[in-house]
Every structure is written in C-alpha cells, then in structure tokens.
C-alpha cells in the first residue's frame, strides 16, 4: 500500500473547508507544527501526519504479534494511534524537541497491547501457535530478545526524561539518521550524536543489573 493511499484513508481532507492553506516547510520544527495544529490549521495537521506516519509504520513492523501482522491491520493500528494522538494533542505536554515522537510511540505501544489482548480473546487465535503457550502472543521483537529483556528495557527507558527517551527511540528504534534527528530537535548532527550517546549512557545505568540473567 502506498503512503498516499493510506493518507487518503486517514485524513479528513474535506474538513479543511474555508481554511486558508498555509505552506508548511519540510524543516518546520515539530513543536511549531503542533502549535499550528492546536490552533486548527489543517495543513499543519497533514504535515504532521506526513512526517510521522511512515516512521510509525516502520516501527510497528516487527512489534505486532504474528496474528495481527496482516498489512491492513498494521496500517489500521498505526493510523488509529496517530489519529488518537492528534485528537489528544491539546493534552500533549511538550518536554523538549523529540518528545512528540516518544509520545506517539507510547500511544502506539498501548494500541499494540490492546490489540494483543483483543486477539487473545478471539477464539481462532488458539490455532496460531500452541508451541508458544508460555508467552501468549509474542511479537517478533519479543521472540527475538525475550519478554523479560524487553520489559527491562521499557522500564529503564520510561525512567528517563522525555527528551532523552525521544533521542533514543528516534535513533535506535525509528532508525532516523543524525541529520534527520537534528532537524527534528533543532540542532546539529554532531551535537545530536553526543546527545544520543549521553542518553544511552543514562539508559544503560538505569537498566537493572543482571536483568539478562533471567531469561
């Protein structure tokens, strides 16, 4: 499915109505876009979706359990999460550049968990994989690293300031380049590299010792 196709499904284009379209520069900081979305600018909303949908789609790949890996379901879930985030955008408290992506990731993560619970209630899910009965419906990422390790990582990540969470997820999980992150946080690629490294040291310190010994 193309990006354009999915946007058409997501965006209530018709609602823009009489609003005067204002151009959105590709380099416009997310914070500014969020402010514009809050003041009701449809164009800013489209730009925000265009900026984050591909990233979220990429991220969701590998984090959904097998049973929900149908492309449409992934797509629906990602779009739903983004729409939910946009609806609640007034409640989003910006804690520095990059924190919006960490916020989106959290909403999507919750959405994925809800989906797993829903699938577990679905009778046909019994047939999915009886071999994996001990770990419910593992997503590929859970299968690759194990549930315990993933939980330890999430707990450590959640203990960091939002700004650092944002830097780490952008680099490690969303695979963004330093220049891309620099644009997002309004900095230079070199400075971003140092910031990401420092955030990783913080995260490593927060990871519980011996967490990996309990497979």
């Amino acid at each position, binding site marked *: 499915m193309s990006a354009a196709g999915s946007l058409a499904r997501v965006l209530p284009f018709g609602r823009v109505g009489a609003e005067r379209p204002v151009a959105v520069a590709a380099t416009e900081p997310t914070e500014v876009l969020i402010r514009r979305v809050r003041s009701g600018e449809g164009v800013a909303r489209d730009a925000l979706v265009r900026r984050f949908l591909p990233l979220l*789609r990429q991220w969701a790949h590998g984090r959904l359990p097998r049973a929900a890996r149908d492309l449409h379901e992934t797509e629906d879930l990602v779009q739903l999460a983004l729409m939910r985030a946009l609806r609640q955008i007034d409640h989003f408290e910006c804690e520095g550049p990059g924190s919006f992506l960490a916020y989106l990731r959290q909403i999507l993560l919750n959405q994925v968990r809800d989906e797993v619970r829903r699938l577990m209630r679905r009778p046909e899910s019994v047939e999915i994989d009886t071999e994996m009965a001990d770990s419910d419906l593992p997503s590929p990422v859970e299968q690759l690293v194990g549930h315990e390790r993933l939980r330890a990582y999430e707990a450590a990540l959640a203990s960091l300031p939002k700004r650092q969470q944002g830097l780490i997820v952008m680099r490690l999980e969303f695979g963004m380049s330093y220049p891309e992150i620099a644009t997002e946080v309004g900095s230079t690629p070199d400075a971003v590299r140092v910031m*990401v490294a420092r955030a990783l040291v913080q995260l490593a310190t927060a990871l519980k*010792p011996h967490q990996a010994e309990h497979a």
Partner: protein
Amino acid sequence: MAGENPDLEKIAAGIADDAALDWRLLAKLDSTAAEAGDGLRELSQLAQVFRGLQLKPERAAQSSVQFRFAGLDVLERLGCGAQGEVWRAYDPMLDQEVALKLRHVDSDTLAHHFLAEGRRLAKLRHPNIVSVYGAAAQDGRVGLWIELVRGRSLAELLQSEGPLGAADAVQIGIELCRGLAAVHRHGLTHGDVKAENVLRDASGRIVLADFGAAREFELCSEFDPVSGTRQYLAPEVLAGDRTTPASDQFAVGVLLYRLLTGSYPYLADDLEGLRQEQLAQARRPLHELRPDLPRALAQAVERALAPNPARRHAGMLVLLTALEAALRPWRMRPAHWAGIAAVCALFALAAAFWRAAPPPSFAVDSGFYRDQEGRRERLADGATIAVGDRLRLDLAAAQQTWIYVFNDDGSAVPTVLFPLSGIAPTNPLRPGTRWQLPGHDGVTALSWQVDREAERETFILVASAEPLPQVERRVAEWGHSMTPDEALVARGVGRLAPVQTPAAVEGAGLAALLREIGCDAARRTLHCERFVFPQTRR
C-alpha cells in the same frame, strides 16, 4: 555518576553509530562505570535487533529460494555433516534470516523427542545463548531454526591472535557463566562447551551455540566422546556419568585455561590417560605459564578444573563472581574472613523481634549489611534496599550455634539462603567469631544480591543452640529444588504483597515450619528474627 564518563560515552556513541561494540574499552571500565558498561552491552544487542526489525525495502528475490520448510524460505546451504545440513533461511514471521538445521529421521518417536526438546530450548532466551526460534517435522525431516550469528568462534580467534589477555579472557568467562547459569536454571546442561562452540559476534557479544537437540546434528546418535571435544570432558563424564552443571563448569575451566595459555590443561591421547591426568591434576599451573595473571584469576580457573565436582565452584554464578573479583577487586570487595575473631559487643538489634529477647544463656547478635563501593553500611529496620544491592548477614554468638536463613517471598517454598552446599562456613558456627554470611567458596567472599524488583524483601533468621532436625529436613527439601546459584542471587519476589497489609506476608511452608519449631513459644535456646527491608527504585 557514570553519565560523565568519557569512555562510556565513547562506547555509547559506537552503539548509536551502529559500529562494532568496543569491548576492549568495556573491559577497562572502572568500578563506577562497570555496571553501566553491562547496560551498554545489553543495549548494543537490543539496538541490533531493533535495526533488524526495520522494514527492508527489498528482500532477496523469490528466485533464490531453494525450497520451503515449515514456512521458512530456505536460501543457501551453509554446511553439511553426516547427520544433517545447515541452511541459511528467511523466516517471514520474524522478518529475519535464521540458520536452519535439517536432518532426516526415520522414526516418529525420534521426531517427537526432537520437537519436544526444540520447544524446550525455544523457551530459553539469553543474550549469551544462541536463540532457538522454532522446531518442526515435515516430509520425513526435522528442522530446528536458530539465530544466525555472524561472527568468529573462539577457536578461530585463538588461532589468529594467540592467547588472550586476562581482561579479554575474564570477559568471555563472565559472559559464558551468565549464559550457562541460565541454561542450568532451566534444568538443562550444555554438555559441549568448547572453543569451537563459542562465537564472538560482530558486536563483541559472546554466544554459546549448539546444545541439546541442536548438538545432535554434530554428534552421532550414540554418545561419542572421541569427537574432538574430549579435552573438555570432566573426569566423571569420562567415567560414564551424564553431563551436569559441574561438568559444564569443568569445560569452561578448560576453555579459559586454553584461552589464556594456548594449550589444553591435559594432553593425553587416550581417554583413560586423560582421566588419570585429570585426577592427578597433572597439568602445568597457570601461574607458571602466565606469571602475569592475577593470582586470584588463576585460582578461580583452576578451581573449576578440580577433579572432584564437589570441589569446584558452587555454581556458574559463583565462578562468575570469582572471575569478576579476580579482575575487578573493587567491584566485589571480598570481605576478610580469616582471623576476624572479634570480641562481639552485643548491641541493640536493628531488626524487629517477634519474641522477647532470649535469656543471656543463649545470645546471638545479628544484623544485615549492605556492601556498596567499598563501604559497609548497616541496614537498620525499615532501611530501603534496591535491585543490585549486595547484602550480608553479620552474626556472632556466645555459644555454638546452628543458623538457618531464608528469603520469604510469600510462596509455599522459601529460598534457603543459608546453609548452602559448597559454601563455608557450615553449621554449627563457632562462638567467638563474627561471621559474615553467606560465606565464601574457598576463594571468594560472597554476598546475596537482590535481583528482582519487589515491594520488600523479608529475611527470616533462625538461630538455635542445638541442631533442628525439622529445619534441616526442610532445608534439604527446599534447598534441593534449586542450585546454590539461585540462592546466592536472592530470589527477590515477582509477586507483590498488597500495600494495605501491614504485616509481612509469610509463605505457608515457612510459617508452618516456624510454628513447628516453636518460634512463637518462649524457648531458651531458640532465636527467630524477621528482617523486612522495603525495596526502592534506584
């Protein structure tokens, strides 16, 4: 604070850059940074997995698929042996390339056994153990697909670079101990630890490969001790015993000896000669071949090579502790055990008594201490502890005393923390000495480490002027269900006691035992204490 350490930042920047992990720099980290270093090692692996999960624009063309097996696209043959073949395959569910081991089976029973074993292995996930993703039988063949590790074996490393430095060898040893401890906790043994089976991947991670069902590909169906791995076999295995955690430890000892010296400790050509050499310990001492090694490191490795399994380290985590202490003494702070015949002043107990202090004829003074960065801190009642804390019980008695220590997490079977097999001291404890429990394994002083988050940790201490047969019986029973490894790392609870319950929740089994021996009744020669330490997040 570890956050200011430039070495840590350099390693972290490497992880962020997707460069190979700088594990030499990691091994050099000092005390304040070592745990953050462990965290970075873990993050490096997670980062690799996360990168692997990102959508790849185009996958190998379908035409390169040789055949399909259990939903996998089988791509290229990597190797073959008498028993089967190894293929590179693509798992569309994981969106990862995997190694698929395939072999023919002619009986349903064998296939069934193989699948059961495969499923058991698939439950084990540890960064230092190759991950088994699945097992299936199809068209008269059974297959096991596992993590595709891209790296070199330690045998290749040894061949190209010669013997390793102490820091490198210890780091490898530590990672192997972690992996094997996880294997043993699952009630499995590896049985074939050798330089050829240990891989170092591109990120510097040490991965133990090929065990259980996976190993059956390499070995003939009959056990074959002459398959080039005999140098690693413990004397009891050469005598016909099955492999055990202690024989895995012996193999790690052989491997470390070989990594440090370039040669095997025992060299006899035939099995019986090898066993005789092992029993006589007819090997060149490590310090003779490598005078540069820290003495404690040589001792730790040689203890793993003890011909009598009972004389080896009490478990993989104990060996790990000894290796770590040998290289980074500042991390472990081994206590000074010998000769502390301190005159013990009886001071007020910090912990909560649940009965009146016993008459002076039987007196025990006890208190928990936390070892932190070289400081020894007494834990007063209600003191908070955190995951990672190392605790010891300091204890002195005016008379010969039998001591039993339990960690109570509210479950039916508590963890026995003392006495532990293979660990000194043992009951009864002599009077006139200030003991620090759990004790030591002959080389290294040990502590209990809190390794799981819980609302609180509850320790029960039973001290008696005479042996308590009921307690001895239950200790044997409860202690039997775990290895000393597990006891040394205090179990820490996964279950949380409800906040509103003011009294500590007591496991049914332990509560019954304490009633039975009369903790509630006033007895002159018995002393029961409960220590409750709430946990805090660090």
